[in-house]
C-alpha cells in the first residue's frame, strides 16, 4: 500500500464538511453520477448515429426504440407477461444462483487462503491444482457438474450454484492469501513484542489488514459468479434465468434481433447490481476508516 499523506488537523475538526447540509450532499451525489450518465447518453447517441452513418441494417443493429418496444410486448409462451417483467424474473432467478455460488465459493476461497497461509506445505502441494482448475473452460465443467450432481439426486439449483462457486473461489483464494500475508514485518514484530498468540495475530492483525485485498477479489468474484450462473443454466435446461433467455434469443435472432439485446441487458443488470452490493459492503466495512480502502 502506498504511503499515506499526512493531512493537517483541519480534517478532524468537528465542523468537517462530511455531514454538511442535505442539499450539498445531493449535489455531490449528482456530480458523482454525472460522468456515468454522460457516457450512457453518448453511447446511445453513437448507437443511432452509426446506424444512420454506415447504414447498418436492423438485422445487425436494431433501433433503440425497437428494443424498448420489444420489452413491452407480451411474450408468446405461457405467462403472458410483457418481456420486461419476464426479464426481471429471469434476472432475479440468475441473481439468486449467482449469490449462492458467490457465498459458497467465497467461503471456500477464504478457507483455502487461511489454510494455505498456516500450512505453506499444503499451498505448495495444492496451489498448482487450484490454478489448473481455472484453466479448464467453464463450458466443459458445467455439463459434468449438472449431470453428475443430477445423478446423485441433487436439485438443479445445487448444480448451478456449484458451477458459480467454481468460478468464484479462485480469485478469493488468491486475493485473500495475498492479503493475509500483507502484514508488514514491523506490525508482526509489534505483535511478537506483546507475546500475542497466533489466533490473536490472525484476528487482530492479519484478517483486518487483508480486508482491502479481500474486497478487491470479491469484486472480481461477483462478476465471475454471474458468468458461472448463466453458463450453468445452459446444460441444466433451466426454464428460467438469464442463460435460458440468451439461448432462446440467440436461436431466434434472425427473426427477432432485439430480444438478444434485452437478454444482454438482463445479464449486465445482474452483474452490475451484484458488483454494486459488494462495493457498498466495502464502503461500509472498510471505507470509513482508511484513506486507501481499495
Amino acid at each position, binding site marked *: 500500500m502506498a504511503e499515506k499523506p*499526512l493531512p493537517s*488537523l483541519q*480534517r*478532524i475538526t468537528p465542523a468537517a464538511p462530511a455531514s454538511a447540509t442535505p442539499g450539498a450532499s445531493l449535489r455531490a451525489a449528482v456530480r458523482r453520477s454525472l460522468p456515468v450518465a454522460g457516457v450512457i447518453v453518448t453511447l446511445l447517441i453513437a448507437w443511432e448515429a452509426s446506424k444512420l452513418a454506415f447504414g447498418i441494417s436492423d438485422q445487425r443493429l436494431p433501433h433503440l426504440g425497437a428494443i424498448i418496444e420489444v420489452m413491452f410486448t407480451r411474450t408468446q409462451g405461457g405467462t403472458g407477461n410483457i418481456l420486461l417483467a419476464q426479464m426481471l424474473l429471469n434476472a432475479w432467478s440468475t441473481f439468486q444462483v449467482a449469490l449462492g455460488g458467490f457465498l459458497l465459493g467465497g467461503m471456500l476461497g477464504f478457507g483455502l487462503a487461511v489454510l494455505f497461509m498456516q500450512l505453506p506445505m499444503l499451498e505448495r502441494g495444492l496451489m498448482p491444482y487450484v490454478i489448473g482448475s481455472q484453466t479448464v473452460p467453464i463450458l466443459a465443467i458445467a455439463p459434468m457438474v449438472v449431470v453428475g450432481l443430477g445423478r446423485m439426486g441433487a436439485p438443479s439449483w445445487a448444480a448451478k450454484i456449484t458451477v458459480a462457486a467454481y468460478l468464484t473461489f479462485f480469485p478469493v483464494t488468491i486475493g485473500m492469501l495475498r492479503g493475509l500475508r500483507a502484514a508488514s514485518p514491523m506490525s508482526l514484530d509489534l505483535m511478537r*513484542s*506483546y507475546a500475542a498468540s497466533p489466533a*490473536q495475530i490472525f484476528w*487482530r492483525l492479519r484478517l483486518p*489488514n487483508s480486508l482491502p485485498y479481500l474486497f478487491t477479489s470479491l469484486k472480481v468474484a461477483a462478476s465471475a459468479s454471474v458468468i458461472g450462473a448463466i453458463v450453468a443454466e445452459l446444460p441444466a435446461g433451466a426454464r428460467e434465468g438469464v442463460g435460458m433467455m440468451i439461448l432462446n434469443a440467440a436461436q431466434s435472432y434472425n427473426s427477432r434481433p432485439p430480444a438478444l439485446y434485452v437478454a444482454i441487458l438482463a445479464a449486465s443488470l445482474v452483474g452490475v447490481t451484484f458488483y454494486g452490493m459488494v462495493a457498498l459492503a466495502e464502503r461500509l466495512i472498510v471505507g470509513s476508516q*482508511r484513506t486507501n480502502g481499495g
Partner: protein
Amino acid sequence: MSAPMIEFDRVSKIYQSGGGPVNALHDVSLSIAAGEFIALIGPSGCGKSTLMRLVGDLEQPSAGGLRVRGKTAHQARLDRDYGIVFQSPVLYEWRSIRKNVELPLEIMGQPGPQRHARASELLRLVGLSDFGDAYPHQLSGGMQQRAAIARALSFEPAILLMDEPFGALDEITRERMQLELLSIWDGGPQRTTVIFVTHSIPEAVFLADRVVVMSPRPGRVERLVTVDLPRPRSFETREDPRFFALVTEVREGLREH
C-alpha cells in the same frame, strides 16, 4: 547498584546473507542499570538496531549471553517486560487512535473499562486527548508517533525500546518530542529503563544518561560516554557548554575507527 536490568556478555550476531556471513555485532559486553536511559549511536550498519532487537527477542544472538531482568530475552518477552517504538508509528490503520493504544492491553486480556481508563490517561499524557476517536491517517507524523509511544507505555513495561523513533520527524517537532519524552520518563513513580537507538549526536546526548558509541561492521562498543548533565533537562540544556563538550566527545568517538 543492584543487579543490572540488561546485561550483554560478549554477544555476537552473524547474519547469513547471499554474499556470505555478515558480522553484525562482535563481542559486545554492556551492562544497563534499572531506570537508566541509554542511547545507542553509530553509523548505519553498526548493528545498533540489532542490539536493541536482541533485547526484545525479535532476533537471537549467535554467541554470548544476554540477560534481561535476570532472565533470558525470550522469557522477558513472554513476560511482557518491554514496550517497543519503531521509526514508523506502525499504528493499525483500521483502529482508532484509542483502540491502537488499547491493543496491547486487549491482547493481555485486560477488561474493557480498565483498558478504556488507561487509554484515556495515556492519551492525556501524550497530548492526544481530543484525538482518541480519530484514525491514524488523520494525524500528523508527530502525533502518530506520540500515539505509538502511548501504546508502548500502556502496559507499564519495565523497559522501553525505541528504534530511531523521531528519525522521520522534522527538526522542530523532533526537539519538542525529545522534551516530551523526557517529561513522561521523569514523571512516573519509577523510571523506565530506556534503550534509544539514534543517529543524531545531539539527540543522544540530550536524552541519555550514557551514550554507547558503536563502530561499524562488525559492530562493537567503541566508547561509553557518561552524560553528567543535570535533570530535568530543558531547552537551556542544549546551550550548556557541557552539552557541547559531550557532543564533541561523542563525535570524536564516532570518528575513531
